[in-house]
């Protein structure tokens, strides 16, 4: 019997649902797990084995993995070819990350090695007239340099390429013929060249790691997929992404597009995921740009706002108090303290410290008694240190900090256009029930709401 499968693939967490026939009344198999770095296929194979799935007719993937690869700077080395004289242009425009004045300010991280940014003697003017055409001998020299450094992915970023694509096209054709994976900035629409340049760079930067993961998934899928099986990510065939026919950014918003377009049309929606919390303003229309930490990415997608406080946000020292939120996040390996091996207290630990009634598959079973005990002891120690005139227990401290978290979420909702009352927001996702206790609002669906809906969409 052929199955339809839905997969939400995050950076560390994957959620799978499956239905064994075309009938909506049939039971749905659900599975959530933290998958080993870069190996989601293994977890997929286990799901197939557990549910005895031998034939798959439909497989629909939603993911934001390319965005996560950029955020965590896990992409592969790339080369950037840009108009001569503007090799440092992107770097000097990176904003200062540190909001306060400091003797050691930091700029937003620059993911490209300066050594691999090459100025090309070309120029198109503001009217779109080519003042300097590309010279093939210059390209020959560049190719030898790229080959020497074993660079395979190249972003081509020329000024005014939207007005006249000729120079970018010539370079792309030349390099593609030599076996390079090439992304041109003219593929993206923005009046600001930096956004187009960053978008081409994001594609080149994420391609290798993203397609490796998709290839790993496909290897398992092919074992059970029917010859005419529909295997898609967003509206594209997964194989086309692997083959480079579809760019990573074209599928980078497949998760948020699915959630936003299906569930946030008439209601403001806060998706409370394990890895991230995203807010979707109702009546949103697809937008063309997504702000990242230091630049915009130009791809049409459903707008959303990422909450500043995420479940993995670390707790650390504030100006007054020894325990408040800071800007860093922990990775899910080793994860929050409640998982047993984590060393840093997180918002996740606070949210789940006293939660026993919510059974979230693949999550609550990871919480270890040893971790809970260690976090409780840490919290009590913090409370003793901070007691001042008022006696305070660990639980009281946790409650106060969670109140501060809720206030911060409310601010983010307000800044994103939600009315000044968080009780009117709709919550969904695996952590929705837990977040609702602090933020109010009303919860829709169970903890597999999105992935199950994905399955419904594909049937």
């Amino acid at each position, binding site marked *: 019997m052929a199955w339809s499968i839905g997969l939400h693939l995050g950076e560390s967490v994957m959620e799978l649902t499956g239905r064994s026939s075309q009938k909506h009344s049939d039971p749905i198999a659900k599975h959530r797990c933290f998958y080993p770095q870069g190996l989601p296929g293994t977890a997929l194979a286990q799901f197939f084995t557990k549910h005895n799935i031998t034939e798959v007719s439909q497989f629909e993937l939603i993911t934001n993995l390319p965005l996560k690869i950029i955020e965590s700077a896990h992409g592969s080395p790339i080369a950037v070819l840009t108009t001569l004289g503007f090799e440092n242009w992107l770097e000097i425009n990176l904003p200062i990350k540190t909001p306060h*004045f400091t003797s050691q300010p930091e700029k937003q991280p620059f993911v490209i090695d300066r050594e691999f940014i090459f100025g090309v003697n070309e120029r198109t003017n503001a009217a779109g007239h080519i003042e300097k055409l590309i010279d093939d001998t210059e390209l020959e020299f560049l190719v030898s340099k790229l080959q020497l450094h074993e660079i395979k992915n190249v972003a081509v970023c020329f000024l005014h390429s939207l007005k006249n694509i000729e120079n970018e096209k010539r370079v792309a054709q030349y390099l593609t013929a030599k076996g390079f994976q090439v992304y041109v900035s003219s593929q993206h629409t923005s*009046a600001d060249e930096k956004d187009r340049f960053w978008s081409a760079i994001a594609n080149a930067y994420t391609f290798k790691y993203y397609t490796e993961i998709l290839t790993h998934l496909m290897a398992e899928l092919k074992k059970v997929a029917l010859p005419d099986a529909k295997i898609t990510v967003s509206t594209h065939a997964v194989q086309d992404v692997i083959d480079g026919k579809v760019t990573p950014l074209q599928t980078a918003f497949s998760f948020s597009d699915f959630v936003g377009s299906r569930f946030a049309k008439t209601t403001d929606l806060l998706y409370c995921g394990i890895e991230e919390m995203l807010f979707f303003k109702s009546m949103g229309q697809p937008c063309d740009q997504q702000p990242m930490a230091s630049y915009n990415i130009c791809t049409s997608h459903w707008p959303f706002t990422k909450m500043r406080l995420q479940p993995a946000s670390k707790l650390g020292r504030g100006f007054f108090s020894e325990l408040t939120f800071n800007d860093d996040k922990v990775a899910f390996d080793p994860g929050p303290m409640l998982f047993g091996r984590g060393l840093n207290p997180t918002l996740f630990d606070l949210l789940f410290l006293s939660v026993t009634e919510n059974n979230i598959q693949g999550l609550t079973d990871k919480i270890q008694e040893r971790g809970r005990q260690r976090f409780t002891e840490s919290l009590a120690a913090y409370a003793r240190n901070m007691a001042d005139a008022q006696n305070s227990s660990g639980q009281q401290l946790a409650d106060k*900090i969670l109140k501060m978290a809720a*206030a911060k979420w409310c601010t983010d909702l307000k800044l994103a256009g939600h009315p000044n009352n968080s009780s009117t927001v709709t919550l969904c996702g695996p952590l929705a029930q837990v977040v609702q206790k602090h933020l109010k609002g009303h919860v829709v669906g169970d903890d597999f709401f999105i992935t199950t809906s994905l399955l419904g969409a594909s049937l």
Partner: protein
Amino acid sequence: MSKLDCQALLECLENIFADYASVAMSTTEYQTVFLKYETLADIGTLPQCSEVTNKYLKLQDGDIVVTNDPYSGGTLLSSPTLIMGIGSKVVKGQTPAEILIASRITLTPRVGEFKTVDDEGLRIPPSPFFIKGEKNSAIIEALKAHPLTQPESIESLLKHAEKLLALRENLKTLMQNSGPLDLNKARLRMYFDATENEFKKRLDDLGEGSSRSELLLSQGQNIKLHVDHLDGHFHFDFSGTSQGDTLFMTDSAVIGVVVGATISLLKAKIPINSGVYRCFDIKAPRGSLVNATFPRSVYLGHTDGLNIFANLVVQGLGGIHKKNSWAVSGPSQCAYQLTFSDGRRWIDQLGSGMGASERFTGLSGINLWSRTHTNCSVEKIENLYPVQILNSGLRANSAGEGRYSGGQGVVRSIKLNEDADLHWCFASPPHKPEGIHGGKAAMGAEIVHQNLAGEKLELANSGHLKIKKGEVITVMSAGGGGYGIKI
């Protein structure tokens, strides 16, 4: 009030003002509760704006006053401030303000050499913009009708005033008794005490003692500074500073520089309120370039001058504790303006190199003392103005070498496609950004004009020049000095 309550209050204030770039919240007893800054000047001038305005205009609930007058607590004329009163207690039919919110916006500046503040543009002394939540049409129309007003400026101010009025309602709810923002006197006193205590705990990093430093700006123009730090209290004495010739700052801007540059040496982010201000005493002789008197122009002092003064303050504190010494950062933002025959104006500025310090290589191409991010696009500029940008990147070899090298400056060349008037104004001390402890000096700022024959001429620090179509202007910002001897 426990430490956690103080933290909660701070975070509550940060949430409230999350979408404001430059804002201060004060009581009508002129205690600063919260301050968020974009520039060094904001740190000293925003509270001053509130104080001067309320002293003379006695704000009521819903009143909003506009000013850009540097001699009333403002800074650049292109950065007007709106001061709003919030009150809830009715006294004899009036609702006097209990809280003052000063919020600043940044508009397009004018670049040039100005003799008086009135040459810089339209100076607006504190004027009632909204009265009890309603627009004051007489003032608004008068501002609109003024020949030096840009129409979009008034629209921006009106939009910002509406945003403040919406904030007022929210704040009133939060400020009710036992609300998260209950700012009664006892709570505020505890909050300021806690801030002062925590601030002082972190001052160990700065060491105690005193130092003297001096900076020669030009012939007859110098700044003298004596810094004294003892028991968590700072005394900055600018006695002996000259009257000045081109560079002037108001006393409130100097407060901002002193406080901002001092806290920059601490590892933690310091919340700025009266608990921090009371740790500083500043002596700035009236009439000197650090306490300018009307009608001196403060344009250069409140742009490049802030960077120069901050470098000096850092140098003074470095004299107390070597660990804090820091090579000189490129002082000028290299602002220039091109005006075309149809009246279009393009204003540009460059980041510079930061000075190196112990274990820290200076960053390149940044404006160290500003958090205003100007999102510059080559294509947008070339589409809007008859120019072609020939290059824009880091200026090679501009950084001072050392064990830790300074940051590099920026170079930008512009070819004109039409005739234009160029105005520029760089504050540049006579010597290059110096290195310390054996580190080398960086290259200073320069501006070069290349005529149609290809001849290059280095221009003075400030001036005005008619540029012909096809000619090229190259602007180069300074690098940062190096730290230590390069091995």
